[in-house]
Each structure stands twice: as C-alpha cells, then as structure tokens.
C-alpha cells in the first residue's frame, strides 16, 4: 500500500500554476503599496492640520461667575425673597 503523503505530494508536483501567480508583477504591487502609504501619510497630515485649525477656532471663553454675598442679596431682593428665606 502506498504512503498517502507520497500520493498527495505527487499531485502537488503536478498542480497547475494559477494565472494570478504567472501574471503577478511585484514592482506594480510595490508601487501601489507605496502610493497607498503616501495617501495615508498625506491624509494623516491633513487631519492633524484640520484638528489644529478647529482647536484654534474652538476656544471656549467661559464667563467668570463671582457670586459674592452682595450680588446674592441684590438678586434675592429682585426676586422678592424675604430676609429669612435668603
């Protein structure tokens, strides 16, 4: 009885080579990868610049609140609150 591995590997030795392997061009693929890398790098730079610009414009100025006692009394007087309710 023949070894199943021998029979299998004999088939592999005769396997047809796909057209995709015959036609494959490493240089063209490398150029595509390079172009893609460049696009990613360019997109990243654009994104960073965009975020920097948004950050520059988007500075929020928070109004300073100083609820001092005088202001509080004035406010409660305006609202008509009694002294004990203040």
């Amino acid at each position: 009885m023949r070894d199943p591995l021998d029979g299998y590997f004999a088939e592999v030795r005769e396997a047809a080579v796909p057209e995709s392997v015959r036609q494959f061009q490493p240089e063209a693929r490398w150029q595509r990868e390079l172009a893609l890398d460049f696009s990613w790098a360019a997109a990243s730079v654009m994104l960073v610049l965009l975020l920097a610009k948004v950050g520059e414009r988007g500075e929020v100025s928070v109004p300073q609140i100083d609820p001092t006692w005088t202001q509080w009394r004035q406010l409660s007087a305006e609202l008509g609150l009694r002294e004990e309710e203040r």
Partner: protein
Amino acid sequence: MLSIVHSIGWIRERSERRADRVVAFLDAERPWIFRLALAIVHRTDLAEDVTQETLLACWKARHSVRETAAIRGWVRRTLVRQALRQRVSHLAMDGELAARGDLAESAAVRAVLASMPASMRAVLALADYERLSYAEIAAALEIPEGTVGSRLHAARAMFRARWEGQ
C-alpha cells in the same frame, strides 16, 4: 578620487547584476514557488497569497543578495516564513487538486494536514515533498539542525496517528 568613483560604480553595477539574477530567478521559478507553498498550506487560494507575498518580499530585498548561488535557499526561507503566517484552520474543497487523481484520498490527506500545526506541516513538506537534507530544512525553517530530526519524527507520527484515527 577618480578611483573611488570608479569603485562605487563597479560595486553598484555588480549589485544591479545580482538583483537582475534574483528577478530572473523569481520569474522562472514561479511554478516551484507556488507548488512548495501549496505543499505547506494545502489550499490554492492560500498558496497564491503566499506565492505573491514571497515574490514581493524577495523583489524588495533583491539588492541584499550577496551570493547568487544561494538564491534558491533564500527564496525558500522567505516562502516558509510567509507560509507559517497563514492560518489553515478552514479547509475548503478547492478545485485544482480535488478535480484530479484520487479525490477522496487527496481530500482526506489535506484535511489531516490542515489539522496539524504549521511548523509540522512545513517540515513534512520540506522533507517529503522537497526531499531536502536536514541542513537545508534547518536553514529553511531557521531552526538548529539537531531539531529537524525530532520535529520530522513528531510530524510523521502525528500524521500517521491522525490518518489512522480518522
């Protein structure tokens, strides 16, 4: 000064010549590369991927080859590295091999091989398909030569046990 420029030109020319030989080898030996990949990964689609990645990796590194006599070993090492990265967990019935020869046995052998770890499949392919020496297998797998014998023995035993147990 002129002699330095001349020497640099001579070195570059030699490097280009070696790179041309690598490219010529890669073009001529695609059937060998594809079939060795198939012997390790057992699926046509994965073997195509491994072949293309190997061709690309070798093409990129074509200037790094020092000895043109060692190109085959270098390409084989690159291929094995690429093949070991592939996951062969799912074994689909693919046309090329299944359509020829003894369908049932071929499919069964592939199923058993696919269930084995990649390093075991690789050592079987290098020993029984490529019929390489222990030294060549060690170089391809990047392992000590002393490890090859024990790994091959373990791989054959594992295949036999799974083959008989299925």
